[in-house]
């Protein structure tokens, strides 16, 4: 699943490790989400959005067929 977690994370100057600690998951999970290899739960998505000060659609929205 494509997403903009990596871009959003870099925009707020966080490393994968820092973001992971902020939301209470492991760095590997953040890495897999950024690569699109893990499908996070809505709760985790919201935690990530809060950590990078963005809304859900800014980080996770993908256009259908796009």
């Amino acid at each position, binding site marked *: 699943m494509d997403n903009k977690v990596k871009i959003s994370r870099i925009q707020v100057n966080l490393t994968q490790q820092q973001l992971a600690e902020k939301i*209470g*998951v*492991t760095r*590997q*999970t953040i890495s*897999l989400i950024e690569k699109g290899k*893990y499908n*996070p*739960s809505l*709760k*985790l998505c919201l935690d990530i959005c809060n950590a990078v000060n963005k809304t859900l659609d800014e980080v996770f929205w993908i256009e259908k067929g796009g």
Partner: protein
Amino acid sequence: MKKITDERLVLQNLKNIRIAFIIQTIGILGILGYDLVTSGLDEMRKNPLWTVFIITAVVSAYLSMSISADHEDNKMNPLKNLIISLIILILITTIVGFFVSLTQGFSLINGVIVGVILFICGLIPIIYIYYLRKKRQDKDSE
């Protein structure tokens, strides 16, 4: 030990437990199968592993009832389902009890006892699934 909060790892952990459970079940079946071949059915059932296996099967059957209650489409009224199940159960237990009492060496009392035991054993899951369906219906109508 720190509690795992990462949802991905929790999920992975559950998947690992499932694999371990499959291996364990294969092992239990292997041991029971060996017992069955070498010493026969009665010896196999004396093995405590047999009890473990049966209890696990019963627990898993009851747990999967809540899944199938959610999975099935709920056009039928739960009460109607309950009545149909009860009629079938009464029919089966009556027939079995009848044939037991006809069998040589068994009296009418034996037939009645077997029938009643079968009836009770069948009644518990039927009532449980009725309770599950009813609960789900109440939730749907909220």
